């Protein structure tokens, strides 16, 4: 089924087209949700809510961009909204709160590298992880992140800096990260 047929079917509220759309994009979108969620169950809840919004707003889609990108935006915003509903998340965007994190890299499963990287991201505290996801992966600016998460732009920047440092540390320990020698010295110097 082509993308146009799927879109038209979804506009006509046809279950087959809706399922085709879901089957095509749900695995990747669940991967997105998984980076934001605490566990797989939460990620699936986010995915479900996100796709409900996709179907509800499908008539707003203009063929100017990729359908996947449009769906992804909705899914990311849904994830953020769900996280924001949780009080613990609001607390976790506080810098001081997140600085003293204990890493247990033994939790990282030894699977393919993409999964390893995602699992490493998931080891970060919620606040760090969210800012990192939004900035480095989704491509939002710090200003946008500030408005999305209701935090200062500067907070977003500092969160990201710390998140990145922490992630590098994890990636190095897992030997996923390949970096120049001087950079290694710099990282070890900061420690």
């Amino acid at each position, binding site marked *: 089924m082509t993308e146009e047929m799927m879109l038209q079917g979804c506009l006509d509220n046809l279950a087959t087209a*809706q399922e085709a759309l879901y089957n095509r994009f*749900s695995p990747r979108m669940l*991967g997105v949700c*998984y980076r934001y969620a605490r566990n797989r169950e939460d990620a699936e809840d986010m995915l*479900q809510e996100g796709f409900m919004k996709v179907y509800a707003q499908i008539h707003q889609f203009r063929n100017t961009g990729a359908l996947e990108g449009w769906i992804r935006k909705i899914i990311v915003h849904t994830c953020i909204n769900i996280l924001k509903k949780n009080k613990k998340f609001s607390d976790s965007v506080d810098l001081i709160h997140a600085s003293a994190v204990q890493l247990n890299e033994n939790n990282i499963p030894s699977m393919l*590298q993409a999964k390893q*990287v995602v699992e490493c991201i998931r080891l970060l505290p919620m606040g760090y992880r969210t800012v990192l996801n939004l900035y*480095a992966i989704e491509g939002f600016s710090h200003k946008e992140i500030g408005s999305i998460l209701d935090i200062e732009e500067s907070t977003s920047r500092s969160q990201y800096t710390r998140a990145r440092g922490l992630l590098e540390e994890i990636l190095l320990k897992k030997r996923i990260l390949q*970096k120049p020698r001087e950079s290694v010295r710099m990282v070890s110097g900061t420690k």
Partner: protein
Amino acid sequence: MERRFDMTNFEQSLKDHADQFFIVPSRKVWHGIYNDLHPGSKWPSMAMGLIFLFTLIGIGHLNNTPKQTVSLAPTEKTESEVSVKNEVASAKLTPGITNEKKKNQTQVSAGSTVDNVNPNTRVAIENSINELSSKHSSIVTEKATVNNFKKENKIKNVISGNESSYSGERKMLSNNVSIENNPVDVSGAFKKEFYNPDAVKNKMAANNINKDYTASIIENKILLPEIFFFNNDLLATPVPLINNLKEQNETFIKNNESTKTQQNTTTRTRKKKNGKVNWFYYITPTITSVYFTGKAIQKTPSSNFSTIVILPNQPGNNMIYNARLGLETGTEMVYSFAKLWSFTTGAHVSYSGYNIISNQVHPTFASLIFKNESGATYSKSYITHYGNGQGQNQISLKNYNLQLSVPVGLQYVLWGNKNLQINLGSTIEPSFVLKSNAFLLSSDGRNYVNDPELMRKINVSGNFGSYVTFSSNKLKWKVGPSVRYQVLSTYKNIYPVKEHLIDYGIRIGISK
């Protein structure tokens, strides 16, 4: 694609890796979305559930409703007995009403009818009615004993102190017998005109009741407080004379013994006739096996979809699966229409399935090839993370069916007597699949995919069993092995592989 992180472009590297990552969501996510998008599709299953629930309630109600006895004809009948009895026989008593309730109802009714009566008599009437109403309600119970009957004989004393004739006694005895065996509508209003002595006289005369009684009633100016009518029918007697008639009552009792015995016999006979229908509630623990027919269609290496090959081996041979425990429970009606043959029907719910041994793999694409009605083949791709065979990440996939069935069939008595029988039974069971899940082997035989759309909603099964039926105390048991074979494939016809579930079980049924 294994690619090391490049620190010089951390964000891009992170994005590349994160974008490659995907997870296949469980089917419940789609079901949740689907149910939200199309809420109307819930109704068929809810409707079926409600129908099943009401069926069970109805069956239970029918099975637990007390049987009403019918009027009995005494062996020796005089002309007057017949006439009085015929009148009383039309009276109805509601059996479900409690004594207390009946008493209250009677009091209310009586209160509305005795306004024009002599005050002294009125008190007597009220007392008598109260006493009678409580006794009548006890009369109608099937377990009324002879002792109860002795007490009730007070009612029969229509005749004032005179030595009542035997025929009169018999007449009242007949009345009593009829009362006992007929439901009486207590709520029926007592009519004023029947408290009028003239009306009573006329009524009794019309019914050919002994003239002595009538004369006595009229001459003594006794209003006969206990003479009243239920639905225009004469029922009872004056209270003041009850004590004088105790001895006569003893005679009645003796005479009545034989009649009562006869009644009981007749009642038992009737019950036995109703016993042609038996309701069994049963449960059948089962173990499910599966049998495959048909052959999978596989793409040729050139991956030209128009060219197909038939796998030489059956797909079931490639699967590693374990039998699983299931359950079947429901109700069964057995109706004997001939000496050895019975018709059976009912409703039951069955759960059966099996486990596929699979191993979890990295999400990959797998395809199934289908064949439509015109014979053309087409494929459908799926993302799956279940591989065929055993591995380090072994996982058990559950294929199951939850069905609501209405079996219709025959039962044959192979051997036995009234208390112990060996039966052979066979039914055909149209089924509605309430819920199901199945993982299908992909066309290349390497993966399992899950597609609820392929599941058949309506199916047909055949059941065969041999049962031992025996009576224990008041219960009837039915125990024996049974085999259930799913005639139609679990999947729709477009899928070339046919799956047939076979349930082996022990049926344990119970009936009152």
